[in-house]
């Protein structure tokens, strides 16, 4: 019969990676109509990073996401970037873009201050305008300022910057040090049904609560969490590359390498835990990899809760779960006094 169980797992995960440096550089070019173009060496690999990076530039410049075009991934034209790896794009590349946007904005402020008759320090960029802080009635459109900076003053508003997370190398003996600038945290709770006659596990629902600092784009965070969980389900129950005794891979195809489909996916609820990291762009950290971290642990704990068996090696295939159930039954029967 089917037995229901629940399992919890939490985790921590670093943003960026453990080498001496992993910088990103970026350029933000203000166009004469108040829109902007961002140059970054990172690559869009399906996660929506260019959208998030555009939002960071837009926020810094006080314009809308639609006003920003992001050009990426060309070694001839875009600045260096350590790459779409280690959940670092929003945090590291995001900081570089933020700083580049600030540099472009400083040129706009220099042009706008005499137009508005105030000091540069009194200005802010908001709602596609350069305006006086706490006196927004005095403003000029950002496009007008950009055009003036370029065509009248001869100082086009272009900013370039780079950023590298502050780390401290590990002591080779003890491993003590500051290997990463910051970490994110998450919890996933899974509910499963385990068929105690076949060992088959069905994941019914997962409640996921993830910290990513400020969620620059909550919709993309939710997408990352759902995608990460699908990889976690595969790791927990199905996926395994198998080799024969001679070291030849025996299931190099999607017929024999089983991975989750939409039918295997549980119902997922995503909560974004309120967080703010002062070292990230607008308080953001990252979310890409951590989403795949606690899923298999939560599912395996739920199996344990459902049928009382601990599976020590992944994946927990039906065969493994059933073998463990049978072993448990056999052990229990032996304990009955004669």
């Amino acid at each position, binding site marked *: 019969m089917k037995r229901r169980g629940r399992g919890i797992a939490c985790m921590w995960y670093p943003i960026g990676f453990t080498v001496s440096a992993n910088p990103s550089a970026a350029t933000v070019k203000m166009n004469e109509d108040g829109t902007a173009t961002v140059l970054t060496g990172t690559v869009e690999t399906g996660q929506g990073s260019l959208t998030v990076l555009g939002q960071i530039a837009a926020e810094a410049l006080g314009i*809308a996401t639609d006003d920003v075009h992001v050009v990426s991934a060309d070694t001839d034209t875009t600045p260096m970037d350590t790459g779409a790896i280690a959940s670092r794009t929003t945090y590291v590349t995001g900081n570089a873009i933020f700083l580049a946007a600030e540099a472009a904005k400083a040129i706009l402020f220099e042009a706008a201050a005499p137009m508005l008759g105030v000091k540069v320090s009194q200005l802010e960029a908001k709602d596609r305008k350069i305006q006086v802080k706490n006196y927004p009635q005095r403003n000029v459109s950002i496009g007008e300022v950009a055009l003036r900076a370029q065509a009248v003053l001869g100082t086009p508003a272009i900013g370039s910057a780079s950023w590298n997370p502050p780390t401290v190398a590990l002591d080779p003996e003890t491993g003590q040090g500051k290997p990463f600038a910051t970490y994110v945290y998450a919890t996933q709770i899974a509910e499963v049904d385990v068929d105690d006659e076949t060992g088959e596990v069905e994941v019914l629902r997962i409640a996921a609560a993830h910290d990513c600092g400020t969620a620059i784009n909550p919709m993309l965070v939710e997408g990352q969490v759902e995608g990460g969980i699908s990889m976690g389900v595969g790791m927990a129950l199905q996926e395994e590359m198998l080799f024969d005794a001679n070291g030849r891979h025996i299931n190099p195809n999607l017929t024999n390498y089983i991975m989750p489909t939409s039918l295997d996916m549980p119902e997922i609820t995503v909560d974004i835990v309120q967080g703010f990291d002062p070292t990230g762009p607008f308080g953001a950290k990252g979310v890409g990899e951590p989403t795949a971290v606690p899923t298999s642990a939560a599912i395996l704990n739920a199996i344990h809760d459902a049928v009382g068996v601990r599976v020590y090696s992944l994946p927990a295939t039906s065969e493994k779960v059933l073998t463990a159930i049978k072993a448990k039954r056999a052990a229990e029967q032996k304990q009955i006094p004669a």
Partner: protein
Amino acid sequence: MNEHSRVLERDKLDIAEPLSDVELRLPAVLPRESYPIETLTPDARQQTRAVGQRVTRPDGRLHGLGQTKYIDDLSFPGMLYARIKRAGIASARIKRIDTSAAEAMPGVMAVLTGKEIPVNSFGPSFQDQPVLVDDLVFHAGDGVAAVAAVTEQIANEALEKIVVEYEPLPAVLDPVAAMREDSPKVHAPNSNIYATKTIRKGDVEKGFAESDYIFEDRFSTQMIEHVSLEPHAAIADWDANGRLTIWATIGRITLARADIARTLKLPMSRIRIIGTIVGGNFGGKNEISQEPALALLSKKTGRPVKGVFTRGEEFTSTTTRHPIIMDYKTGVTNKGRILARQIRLVLDGGAYCSWSETTLGKACILAPGPYKIDNVLSEAFVVYTNKTMTGAMRGFGAPQVCFAYESQMDDIAKKLGIDPLEIRLLNAFDEGSPSPTGQVLHSVVIKESLRKAADRFDWEPRS
């Protein structure tokens, strides 16, 4: 006679000879359809507080309409198709490679072997991976020769005509066996243990002595492939000025350019890498693979050369997730506080280092879990085996160790009669807690995440 010279022969023929069916056909083009492109812009994209908005992705429409141009959608005049012959044997010495029959095939424009690659090694940490093996085979998915032909089918057929004679060598497949002194060496004379990491804090023996209970378990995980929808793909174009342009599905173009410059002995200014929209990476496309071979085939033929891995090659010849054997020894008080944790991790590195050193570091540092533990000893080893190389994959060793530390956490809770949520809240990091490496942690919200998930799940305490 190859395809190119055959075309020249035919040009000399009498005009009266009828054109073939192929020559009469129109080039294959997709029917032109007008798509209902709406100009309506979702409101979130127009907000001037951009951060925090549920902004839609500008590439979403193109994906939805099937208009995103992946490498396989790109084509250039005269472009050739490359395929790579795989060894199919886990450990061997190459005695002889005979490519003459393949080269003689009509439509085959060039064949490349490892000996022709200027610097036949690459890798992000250690340069231990050949582009094409030229002497020793390190795993069954290694490439031994590459072919460029006018069609993919001819390239495939040419692979069958390449004869490779191997002298089989003993293969090391089990990482624990590979650690033994007397084990055959994957990269002789070097030890199979190619990187180690230790994190030591406090005194675990003292912590175990003060503990009421000791838990000892061994956990293990499997080798996993990323299975991106889009396989590894690239187009290389070596132009007449000796400048190389590569369109590639690589998530790290800066590193890729450095690796390609090294393998081809080219100045970086002569290399342009264009990262196309990638159909899934998950860590699997963080380094070069076939690109130097495609570049040299392009140089040989003077034509652009495209290479797209098959699904089989995605499994056998690209990086995968590390299987890890994880020994956990944990000492706790009868109230459930963890006093000491000793961990030993053995990572199966496969045939090449790839991102193993980084994975080893992350796994070792994260292995104690997000908990306040005064006494920690975490040791990690990564070893060569004659299997598909393991490397970067979403989580870099963290999903494996999380499976171990969270499984054991539930066993501890069960034994002590404490609710699984409670025991985690009891031990979890606080703001300012020291990490296992002694780093003072900031913006720590692990307890908030535990409570939030528990609320959403309707978690009822039970012990």
